[in-house]
């Protein structure tokens, strides 16, 4: 077997395009941006070294804390809401019924459409005077709400739309998880006279927990990076900056006010927050996950 030991030097040629682009646009920029976060720089003048000043300034910036707080609110409401709804729908879809393919197709449609187009549609649905939502609420005698212009409702309105948009994705993953649970467990439980709730509590919930954990972790990371819908639905951070989230604040600092060093310092703090969250999930929450 001569080619068991022979080195294929040509391999590097095959790897070159991918590795070159990844190094240029993914690996080096990380080190570069860590360096820039210690400078004050508007990209035109020469960068000025300011040490940890950008980071210090960040911790005295009320808007930064507001944006963190808004992002946490977004995550804390949208993640559990999406998990609850998509798990419920997936459990319904897991019944031996007809037309599962049709339902799955329909629930998945918002996932493939662009966030910008659906944000425009929801802008119209949320319109105070001609919007669909206020129209429907008026049937029940509710006064019109100025959803996206109301500081109390702007963030919930964006959350609701985002949950709608991402539901199909989580449903598909939950459905795959549910199909891995052996059917005979439910049969045995039924013979023992377990109610539907008991079946859910003692079979579905624990055996589905790896899937739930996966979705929880991924959607928490995703919700810390929310940007497009906020940009499209509430320009300039919304009423009383009630929808100013971290990535949007970062975008404004970098590409509207050209404070690149400051924006990069923010990017690293955001990364640390996401990392800490993921670590907490992994170390603390994963203990409650039931791996068979």
């Amino acid at each position, binding site marked *: 077997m001569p080619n068991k030991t022979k080195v294929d030097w040509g391999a590097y040629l095959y790897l070159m395009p991918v590795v070159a682009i990844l190094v240029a646009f993914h690996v080096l920029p990380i080190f570069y941006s860590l360096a820039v976060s210690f400078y004050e720089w508007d990209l035109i003048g020469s960068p000025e070294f300011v040490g940890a000043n950008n980071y210090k300034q960040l911790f005295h910036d009320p808007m930064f804390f507001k944006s963190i707080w808004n992002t946490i609110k977004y995550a804390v409401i949208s993640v559990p809401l999406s998990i609850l709804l998509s798990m419920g729908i997936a459990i319904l879809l897991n019944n031996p019924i007809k037309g599962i393919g049709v339902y799955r197709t329909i629930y998945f449609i918002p996932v493939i459409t662009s966030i*910008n187009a659906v944000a425009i549609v929801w802008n119209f649905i949320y319109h105070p005077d001609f919007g669909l939502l206020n129209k429907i609420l008026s049937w029940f005698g509710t006064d019109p709400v100025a959803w996206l212009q109301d500081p109390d409702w702007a963030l919930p309105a964006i959350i609701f739309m985002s949950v709608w948009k991402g539901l199909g994705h989580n449903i598909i993953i939950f459905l795959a998880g549910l199909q891995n649970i052996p059917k005979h467990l439910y049969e045995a439980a039924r013979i023992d006279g377990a109610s539907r709730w008991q079946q859910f509590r003692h079979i579905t919930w624990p055996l589905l927990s790896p899937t739930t954990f996966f979705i929880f972790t991924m959607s928490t990371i995703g919700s810390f990076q929310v940007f497009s819908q906020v940009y499209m639905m509430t320009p300039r951070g919304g009423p009383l900056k009630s929808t100013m989230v971290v990535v949007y604040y970062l975008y404004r600092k970098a590409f509207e006010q050209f404070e690149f060093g400051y924006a990069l310092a923010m*990017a690293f703090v955001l990364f640390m927050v996401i990392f800490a969250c993921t670590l907490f999930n992994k170390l603390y929450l994963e203990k409650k996950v039931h791996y068979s």
Partner: protein
Amino acid sequence: MNEIKHPEYIPVHVMLILGAIFMLFPFIWMVSTSFKSQDEILSTTKDIVLLPDSIRPEFFNGPEEKERIERKKADAKRWEEEQAKPESERDRKVRKPFQWLDNYTYALTAQPFYRFFLNTIFVTITVTSVSLFFASLAAYAFAFFKFPLKDTIFMMILGTMMLPQQALLIPNYIFLSKIHWVNTYMALTVPWLASAYAVFFLRQFFMQLPRDLFDAAVIDGCTRFQFYYKIALPLCKPPMVTLAIFTFLSNWNAFVWPLIVTNDTNLRVIQVGLSYFSSEAGTRWGPLMAASTMTILPLVIMYFLAQKQFVESQATSGMKE
């Protein structure tokens, strides 16, 4: 019938159908609004009117709708009368009555949307084809070749998937502006031509191909590159199709990166064009819904086609036991 034998599933269907309506209704509302005149859109009626005036049977019209249609007819008559006059005598205040496709023509002429579509199609097809080609080359090397630092390089590629995306936007922008790539097609395509995920995904499939097949082909005088494009690649068609669809979708919907690296109208992709149109059109909901419909439509069509292809690609896997 399963459902008749098991009536306990009827509530399940009811809930699922309600959910399906909730998922679909914004799209139905979008398409419906895109065919309505501004008059119809700004009506404060409490009813949900799905059919636009132009195609609604008279039977469904309430007093408000009847009045509006009468007004429209009068306007149309006025317009015709004005058109009959010689051009110098026409009253310029009389406007052309609304035609059902007017929102679409308005959207297409208010912004060079055709150009945005061409840009998006160009970027999407370039990135999808080239990134899959590059990724398959690398995946092939990882699966079949032996060379020093193989595991290190592979781990490095996997590691890039864990890097924070928002921390990359700014340094990449700085880098591109230093090499004068801001506002070029290079900026829109080149950084996305390498996909760590695609390398990992395709490597898994190449690893499943029997090693003996490779060894036998090489002994028979097949070069490594011939084995790649004549045997390995055709056998990995199903994962390639899956990847192509995912890459296509994410590039068609890409927004933040093109927003940052282009501000030239000629280089705008569809999502950026849509966001500019959204702030420019203000309350002209008809044209806005028309533009959204046009942006979504190619994806929805592809989705229905691709669904079938996913199933087919599962059924006709190249290797037979």
